[in-house]
């Protein structure tokens, strides 16, 4: 499967393996990391970003692709939607069918609210499903929420919102317990002790996992619970615009039937945005590990009604995306592979960094190795990559570790003729996570739009400018549950006024006033791929 050039380089990896096996690799000093990030992390490039010209974050930068969508026309511009005809009348509308939306739905239902959960694709089609490595939670004796706080704060370069981060770590063990009680099969020892490992940037082993299907296992359980509770869900029904009432409270949404193109109107006392990330916008041309539907829709919807963004320019590049073969280019190689001991190796067989640095540092270090240092291995389309030395795992922990610990990875590569127990794999950073998003209070409500709540990857501030592995599965559960409870409680005391879409016109006017000329419409909903073919335009 590998090219001759790759096979030659593998010989170097094998030659140095035994001496690397038990070597302690140096960790970088704080100022060394800062310098590396500034020179090599994609967030620090000046190209690839554009200033936002309208709305609450006017004057700040965002990735160009996101700025273009924030400043695009509404899908409803020029259309008349009769808001007097209400198709669904509920207490809590949840937009998004992933882990955060489903956790919110369960809690809102438990609190007695009438819930409607809508999703663009199918329930469970979300980044949650693809999170492989695990979920953090400080539940062991040598660990504590305070230590977890310190790890996540340092990993986030001290830019996390303290009130959000403290809620995340404090409720961490509660989230693990909640999932466990729903029947999630965490990896445990025979005496019930959780099997936990390190992730990049953790100082305690607090990564709980369900093999390398952690997110999938969580997603299928919470989705099953939503179904068991009889909560109304609608698939293939993206929200394309939020509805406010005359007082400016979030009061519903316009949905589009993705099969028929027909619109419908939801009136709701409270609204939760749980639409996930933005990897499918392919910032700076990077491949992505994200779900097909990760197009930042919730950020667009929220921004158009005046909700504020935070750290919209901070993107997480997962250091180990698949660089070869082409069929799985950009897919995720879980950090658990490095947690289990696999090192990052250059073309000459040298371990050029400690594999458990934080994700941004690891990504920048790989980019440096492949660019300035010219130590990468030529991979696809003129790009290069580094080795992730997977055979080390079984040298360290014994035969069978890979099949038991990372069966998904083993299977993914086996389909394309690579046995990662015997051969290392080629990796390069892939667009993985939206660190920023809509700003919320610790109760999940946006800071400046009443009755609009946000949970999951669409939130900004919890992780600061860089998230640690295992804190996103945690965040969708913790803040999903919080949003569900808060939105249900608020619904009880809310009287919704007359529905309006006036903000859409107002936004169009602000675009015109700012001199923005565009032929784009948003939310994008889905990316378009042609794999190298240029379709003839009519």
């Amino acid at each position, binding site marked *: 499967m590998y090219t001759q050039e790759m096979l030659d380089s593998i010989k170097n990896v094998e030659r140095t393996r035994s001496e690397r096996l038990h070597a302690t690799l140096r960790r970088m000093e704080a100022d060394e990391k800062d310098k590396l990030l500034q020179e090599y992390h994609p967030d620090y490039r000046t190209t690839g970003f554009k200033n936002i010209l309208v709305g609450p974050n006017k004057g700040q930068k965002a990735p160009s692709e996101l700025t273009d969508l924030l400043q695009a026309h509404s899908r409803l511009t020029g259309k008349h939607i009769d808001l007097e005809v209400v198709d669904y009348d509920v207490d809590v509308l949840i937009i998004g069918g992933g882990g955060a939306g489903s956790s919110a739905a369960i809690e809102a239902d438990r609190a007695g609210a009438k819930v409607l959960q809508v999703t663009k694709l199918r329930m469970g*089609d979300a980044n949650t499903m693809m999170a492989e490595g695990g979920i953090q939670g400080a539940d*062991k004796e040598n660990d504590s929420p305070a230590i977890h706080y*310190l790890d996540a704060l340092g990993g986030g370069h001290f830019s996390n919102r303290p009130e959000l981060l403290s809620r995340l770590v404090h409720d961490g063990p509660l989230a693990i317990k909640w999932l466990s009680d729903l029947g*999630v099969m965490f990896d445990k020892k025979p*005496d019930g002790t959780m099997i936990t490992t390190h992730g990049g940037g953790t100082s305690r082993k607090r990564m709980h996992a369900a093999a390398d299907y952690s997110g999938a296992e969580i997603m299928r359980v919470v989705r099953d619970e939503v179904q068991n509770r*009889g909560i109304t869900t609608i698939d293939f029904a993206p929200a394309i615009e939020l509805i406010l009432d005359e007082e400016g409270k979030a009061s519903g949404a316009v949905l589009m039937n993705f*099969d028929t193109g027909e619109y419908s109107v939801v009136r709701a006392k409270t609204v939760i945005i749980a639409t996930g990330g933005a990897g499918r916008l392919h910032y700076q041309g990077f491949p992505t590990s994200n779900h097909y539907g990760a197009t930042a829709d919730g950020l667009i919807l929220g921004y158009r009604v005046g909700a504020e963004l935070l750290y919209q320019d901070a993107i997480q590049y997962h250091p180990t995306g698949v660089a070869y073969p082409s069929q799985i280019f950009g897919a*995720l190689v879980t950090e658990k592979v490095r947690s289990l001991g696999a090192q990052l190796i250059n073309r000459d067989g040298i371990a050029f960094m400690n594999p458990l640095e934080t994700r941004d540092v690891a990504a920048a270090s790989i980019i440096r190795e492949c660019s300035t240092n010219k130590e990468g291995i030529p991979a696809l389309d003129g790009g290069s990559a580094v080795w992730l030395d997977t055979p080390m795992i079984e040298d360290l922990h014994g035969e069978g570790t890979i099949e038991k610990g990372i069966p*998904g990875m083993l299977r993914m590569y086996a389909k394309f003729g690579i046995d990662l127990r015997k051969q290392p794999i080629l990796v390069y950073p892939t667009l993985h996570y939206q660190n920023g998003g809509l700003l919320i209070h610790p109760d999940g409500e946006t800071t400046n739009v009443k009755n609009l709540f946000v949970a999951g990857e669409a939130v900004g501030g919890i992780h600061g400018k860089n998230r640690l592995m295992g804190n996103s599965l945690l965040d969708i559960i913790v803040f999903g549950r919080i949003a569900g409870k808060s939105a249900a409680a608020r619904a009880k005391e809310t009287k919704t006024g007359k529905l309006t879409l006036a903000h859409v016109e107002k936004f169009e006017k602000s675009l015109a006033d700012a001199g923005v000329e565009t032929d784009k419409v948003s939310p994008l909903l889905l990316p378009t791929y042609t*794999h190298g073919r240029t379709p003839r335009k009519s």
Partner: protein
Amino acid sequence: MQEMVEVFLLGKKYTVPAELTIMDAMEYAGYKLVRGCGCRSGFCGACAVVYRIKGTTEIKVCLSCQTKIEAGMCVGQIVSYPTNKRTFDIEEIKPTANIMGQLYPEIYSCIGCNACTKGCPQGLNVMQYIAYAQRGEYERCAHESFDCVGCNICASRCPAQITHSAVGLLARRLTGKYIAPECEHLELRVKEIEEGKWNVELKKLMDKPMDEIKDLYNHREIEK
């Protein structure tokens, strides 16, 4: 020059690069997928397709994001398969020997044809995990079915009309909640949290000046 192959997508002939997956080949041909496409990494089960190589009798099933296109492939999609999941209250049910039979009695209609196992794109021994379910061996059923992505190809092939993915999921939830050993350190920490202990500790840390917090971070002890 790229190697090209001739294929039939939903009955229509296209010429596509040989290195593409079936999903990518559809997009190359001009489809903008709404249904039949999900995580694009083999985890979500959205993209099941059925195909045969032109001129052969055998019908095959696979995940289109995980399978390379081949010359002569005639591809149809399974974008939605009507399954029959039963609802239950996880707090009420218990992992008793008869619970599976009560909720999913059709598992006892299995005729042992093994079509489920042959169709599984994850290479799972589906018929085996249904056998475990029949015998009330839920933990074994849970582990045997663990890598299921819920594409329901097995269900589409089953003459006994079993919804295998739902059976596996019930076994896993019973295992996770009731059969797996309880976790003492988790219970202990949850109790401390509910008593308010960690709110106090966190506040102490958060109230420190940022320089001191940074120093604590940079010199923190890292567990081996």
